[in-house]
């Protein structure tokens, strides 16, 4: 099983994304202090984040009904994933985090009553981790293309009908402690600005809009 540690991954924090996390519509342009706070918290975010990721490829697997069955009796109950990744040959499993310092600063700001800065910085963190995920996804696609594999859309436990409990399976496959991430009893990742995801790969995978969950608009592998 291949396990890769990625510590030199690009993260780009987009202003529109930071505002989107606070419910700001794309068409609307903020003014005044919101613009200043946005700029200062993005700068603070870049200072605080410690982006890291680990990634593993599982080649010994079988798909049965709505499950992906892995070694050691590990099972992913992922009906949507099975449909999206038909003819799955390799399962890519990734865990990404921006570390804990940003969320500590968010808590400090809330305690000080600096509500706009607190929520802005929290949204910066969300935008940062999603950017990290996009770039790790690119890394996976780049590796896959070299071996003639097609990469399906990325999916994560806890979204849609994929139960959050399957996080335990992903965490048994990855040395999460190597990037300072753990899972609590309720399958919540700590630090909170962490994302796990899976991608299905295969030579015959046929999927519409495989890149629809990825935000990397200028990715050379982007289709649909």
């Amino acid at each position, binding site marked *: 099983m291949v396990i890769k540690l990625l510590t030199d991954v690009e993260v780009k924090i987009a202003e529109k994304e930071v505002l989107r996390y606070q*419910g700001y519509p794309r068409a609307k342009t903020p003014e005044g*202090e*919101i613009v200043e706070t946005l700029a200062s918290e993005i700068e603070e975010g870049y200072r605080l984040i410690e982006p890291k990721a680990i990634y593993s490829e599982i080649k010994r697997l079988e798909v049965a009904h709505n499950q992906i069955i892995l070694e050691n009796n590990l099972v992913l109950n992922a009906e949507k994933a099975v449909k999206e990744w038909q003819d799955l040959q390799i399962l890519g499993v990734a865990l990404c985090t921006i570390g804990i310092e940003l969320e500590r600063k968010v808590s400090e700001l809330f305690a000080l*009553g600096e509500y706009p800065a607190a*929520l802005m910085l929290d949204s910066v963190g969300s935008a940062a981790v999603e950017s990290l995920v996009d770039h790790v996804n690119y890394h996976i696609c780049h590796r896959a293309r070299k071996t003639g594999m097609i990469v399906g859309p990325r999916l994560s436990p806890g979204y849609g009908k994929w139960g*959050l409990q399957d996080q335990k399976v992903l965490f048994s496959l990855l040395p999460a402690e190597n990037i300072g991430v753990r899972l609590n009893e*309720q*399958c919540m990742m700590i630090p909170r600005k962490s994302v796990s995801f899976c991608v299905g790969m295969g030579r015959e995978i046929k999927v519409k809009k495989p890149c629809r969950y990825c935000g990397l608009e200028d990715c050379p592998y982007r289709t649909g």
Partner: protein
Amino acid sequence: MDVLNEIKENIIAGQADMVRELVKKALNEGMNVEDVLNEGLILAMTVVGERFERKEIYVPEVLFSARAMRAGLEILEPLLISAGIEPKGKAITGTVKGDIHDIGKNLVGTMLKGAGFAIIDLGVDVPPQRFVEGTQAEGAKLICISSLITTSMPYMKTTIEALESAGLKGQVKTMVGGAVVTPKYADEIGADGYAPNAAAAVARAKQLLGLD
């Protein structure tokens, strides 16, 4: 423009420094503390909440207003306490056991403070019994319970059951919210109310406590 209106407009505009100065000015002019609170600060945040519900403003603007309101409230608070003026209501906020998300809970607390509530924040990962103990110790009348992950949602139900077992049903109102919570789920678990966001939580809280 009279000073109360100026306070109100500057809270709506999110101008914390101006609000601070205007509240001091109002007090220096001999204005009644409770009037400054109700007609300046709380009225401003009511307008802010309504504008948010109408999608005229968004969360960042709401928070600048909340910050400005807090700036004014910090000056009034010692005077309110010494005059024996009680908050509009007392509410407990907390995120259920196993869940450490706190942003939504913090926003609800902020907006409820803006409406004149006293808030006791129990934090995150709060077991049902601590909600009970906090309610009993503080004499809270409203319990705001947050959950953002499906695996912790069941603890909302056990928290409400724990409040009932402690004989608090009928004495307190429970309000639930969070990304995974729906009005249907709120009904199923016996919550008194549900709010989809922090601004709506204020309106619902007032309804539940008969303050609207």
